[in-house]
């Protein structure tokens, strides 16, 4: 058992899996000699060779396609996008080719797309995006969104061993987040042994009976902070980390809403077209009678992610906005 960073957790999972199974390949920009933009694969090429750890030319569609081709031919590639934003270059490869291949009876496509996602600090419109809305409607994909080092390691292993294409969201902000600064609920010990975390199982980070706060990714930090604030005000907020976005744990949402009767859904991505819309709709359809208040959603503003610090702060759904929304719900 140990406390390691989110970045180390991902790196460790990749390393252990590559040791275990030689069909696992890595491809991406600058991942070989340089170890990748975030140093996740530092030292991998020396260990596993230039055949299995490929420094790709600057061509996301090309190397995504190559990874898919390798997957068709018996390999289990892990594709690193330097930033999640660039996954749009490979859209058709992922959605039309990889995701649909099994449905078309052409065999499984075991492949992991690593997507360093979401805002860091003033990274601007092209290095801050949350990619899940782009892929959420695509049948055949899975989307993992770990928020802790424990989940990151266990879910990476699950992703690699899964026989379907998995988008693996990695939160840049969490890579090197000082462990001691994390809320307690976000630093479960990370076993040194091999373990996996199942997809589709949400985790209750904090129990509460007044309001359900459904979230994932970077927003779990804001959610927990806001829940503490509301707790001090006498409102018990239940905070749930979805952990996987596809498949998602519908039951966890419905169960919690049944208990609390009030729902706030929170994510960093913009609301319009975001996955909160789906979660909210399901509740409006399947837990309608349990609802004691209008469903609330909170996300990024309806603008590109702006760069300058005051704008970026205004854009993001931070703790204060979460607390304000919770207060409104509590008062309803």
């Amino acid at each position, binding site marked *: 058992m140990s406390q390691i960073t989110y970045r180390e957790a991902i790196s460790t999972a990749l390393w252990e899996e590559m040791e275990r199974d030689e069909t696992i*390949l890595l491809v991406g920009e600058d991942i070989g000699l340089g170890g990748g933009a975030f140093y996740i694969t530092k030292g991998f090429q020396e260990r596993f060779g230039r*055949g*299995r750890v*490929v420094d*790709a*030319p600057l*061509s996301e*569609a*090309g*190397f*995504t*396609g*190559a*990874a*898919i*081709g*390798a*997957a*068709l*031919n*018996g*390999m289990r*590639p892990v594709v690193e996008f330097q930033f999640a934003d660039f996954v749009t270059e490979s859209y*058709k*490869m992922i959605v*039309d*080719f990889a995701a*649909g*291949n*099994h*449905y*078309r*009876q*052409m*065999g*499984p*496509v*075991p492949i992991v797309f690593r997507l360093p996602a979401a805002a860091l600090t003033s990274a601007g419109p092209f290095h801050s995006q949350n990619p899940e809305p782009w892929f959420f409607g695509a*049948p*055949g994909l*899975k989307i993992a969104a770990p928020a802790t080092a424990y989940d990151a390691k266990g879910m990476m292993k699950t992703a690699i061993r899964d*026989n*379907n294409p998995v988008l693996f969201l990695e939160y840049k902000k969490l890579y090197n987040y000082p462990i001691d600064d994390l809320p307690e609920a976000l630093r479960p010990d990370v076993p040194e042994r091999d373990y996996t975390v199942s997809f589709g199982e949400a985790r209750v980070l904090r129990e509460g009976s007044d309001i359900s706060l459904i979230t994932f990714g970077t927003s779990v930090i804001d959610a927990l902070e806001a829940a503490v604030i509301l707790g001090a005000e006498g409102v018990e907020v239940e905070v749930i980390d979805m952990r996987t976005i596809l498949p998602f744990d519908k039951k966890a949402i419905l169960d919690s809403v049944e208990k609390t009767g009030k729902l706030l859904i929170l994510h960093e991505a913009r609301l319009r077209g975001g996955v909160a819309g789906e979660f909210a709709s399901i509740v409006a359809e399947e837990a309608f009678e349990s609802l004691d208040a209008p469903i609330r959603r909170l996300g990024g503003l309806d603008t590109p992610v702006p760069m300058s610090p005051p704008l970026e702060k205004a854009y993001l759904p931070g703790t204060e906005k979460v607390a304000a929304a919770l207060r409104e719900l509590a008062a309803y």
Partner: protein
Amino acid sequence: MSGTKAETSGSPVTREDLARLDYFEDLRDRYLSIESLDARWHPIDQADLTSDRDTCMRIHHLISLTRSVEETLDSAFRSGHVPGTAFFGRGNEAASVASAACLDDEEWLIPMHRNCGAHIAKGHPPVSIMAHFFGRAGGPSSGRDGNFHMGYRPRKITQLISHIGTMVPIAAGVAWAEKLRGQGRAALTYIGDGGTSAGDVHEGMNFATVQKLPLVIIIDNNQYAYKTLLKEQFACESLVLRAPGYGMPGYLVDGTNALLMHKICGEALERARAGEGPTLIESVTIRAVGHSVYDKYSDYVDMELLNRWNEERDPVKRLDAYLLAGGIATEDEIGESHVRARKEAEEAREEALKMPFPDPEKVEDDVYAP
């Protein structure tokens, strides 16, 4: 062979080889009298094309079968048995068949939307092809896809997606896996003249050459991309001129000449298997039919030129004539090969038409692999 191994080998063109470059100057006007060029862009000596009877007859039968399968599909379409649309590769049967016939059973084929001949040469049974076009449960995608969006896993044939260009990177990836496995196997793919404009093709060719993958890429230059003419598609004199930009050898081949394609593609695959990396082959043919069964192609096709091609360069007729002239087969043997092909296609059609449509209850199955 056009000469020594070195002459057609994988090293990129240099010096005096390239002095022949002005050959290409108005190549497009001269496709009808095309001269095939080797990796150093010397005319390929065709004296040594194979006259091995078994090889010749096998290729002949596969080409004839391809034509029959497509003609049968076309008539099935007209009878209402093909939902959606259908594309045909009439005109490129020789290039498709003779290239794919060079693959071993364990090697992968990554075909495009007119490579019926490649499917057939690689062993995709006509009945499966028909069932696919007819949307039947017994087709390789159980009716979930149709037309030439078709693969066949038992014979290591991938299915393409519609987005043209995507298959070159996919093919590179298939070849990457082969290289890692180290069993000396290569892969073969195709792309149209229109497809060469797609960014993915560039990315895929670049990936394949940088990684020195065992891959042969055939440009099916059939002079049309749907309704778009070559001059709207690229401004270079010939698409083989792209090969040096990736550091790979490029060949220009008369794609109506089956045995020539068999030789050039076979050599390219041998180099790939030997670890010498990819080869680009431009195969010049003509699209002898419309883009799809719905296409009113006389709107934009030079029909006089098309008729001349069909007269002078029909790949089936050319192979018939070659076998006869070379004394490789008699008129009867050739005729018999054709008859057998037509029968095989007809039987496949009947069998496929007996297959049931897929069960709508199962429409939601198989989205995820277990």
